[in-house]
C-alpha cells in the first residue's frame, strides 16, 4: 500500500482512477481508510462477490501453511510492510485489473500466492494500453 500511495501522482497524471476492493464491511473499510490514510476509493465486498466474479484464486489450506508463503511473509515484514488485519477469508488471493473506458480488461494479474503483487511501475506501464 505504501508503494501505491507514493505513486498516486503518477496514476493521476496517467488519467487513471485507482479503486481498491477489500473484504471488509463498509464500517471496517471506512476504519481502514481512516487508520491508514488511504488516498483511493475502497469498495466493500464482504461476501467476496467481486473477487469471485473476476475469478481471483484461493490459496489451498496446504498453501496457507507452506514454508515459502511463511518466508515471503517474513521478508515482507522486514521490508516494512505491516501485517494486515485478517478480515474475510484468509485463503483469498489478491489481484489487479485495468479496465479501459470501453469496459475492456486490458491488463489482469491473478496472484499465485499472498505476496504476488505487480509493482506500481508495472501497472503504470500497462496503463498505456488503456488510453
Amino acid at each position: 500500500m505504501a508503494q501505491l500511495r507514493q505513486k498516486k501522482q503518477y496514476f493521476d497524471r496517467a488519467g487513471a482512477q485507482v479503486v481498491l476492493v477489500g473484504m471488509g464491511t463498509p464500517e471496517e473499510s471506512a476504519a481502514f481508510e481512516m487508520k491508514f490514510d488511504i488516498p483511493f476509493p475502497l469498495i466493500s465486498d464482504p461476501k467476496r462477490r467481486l473477487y469471485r466474479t473476476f475469478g481471483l484464486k484461493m490459496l489451498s489450506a496446504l498453501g496457507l501453511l507452506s514454508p515459502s508463503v511463511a518466508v515471503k511473509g517474513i521478508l515482507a515484514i522486514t521490508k516494512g510492510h505491516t501485517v494486515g488485519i485478517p478480515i474475510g477469508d484468509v485463503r483469498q488471493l489478491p489481484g489487479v485489473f485495468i479496465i479501459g473506458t470501453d469496459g475492456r480488461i486490458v491488463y489482469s494479474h491473478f496472484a499465485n500466492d499472498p505476496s504476488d503483487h505487480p509493482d506500481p511501475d508495472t501497472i503504470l506501464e500497462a496503463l498505456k494500453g488503456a488510453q
Partner: protein
Amino acid sequence: MNNNINKAFDAKVTMADGAERLLSDLWKKQPLVLIFLRHLG
C-alpha cells in the same frame, strides 16, 4: 502478467462510505485500476 481483452463484468458495488455505485461508472470517464486486496492493513 496476464493480458486479455475481455469485457469487464458490471455490478452494483458498495463503497466504504456506504454509497452504492455501478462498477461501470468507475471506468466510463477514465481507465480504472481495480486492486483486490488480500486483507485490510
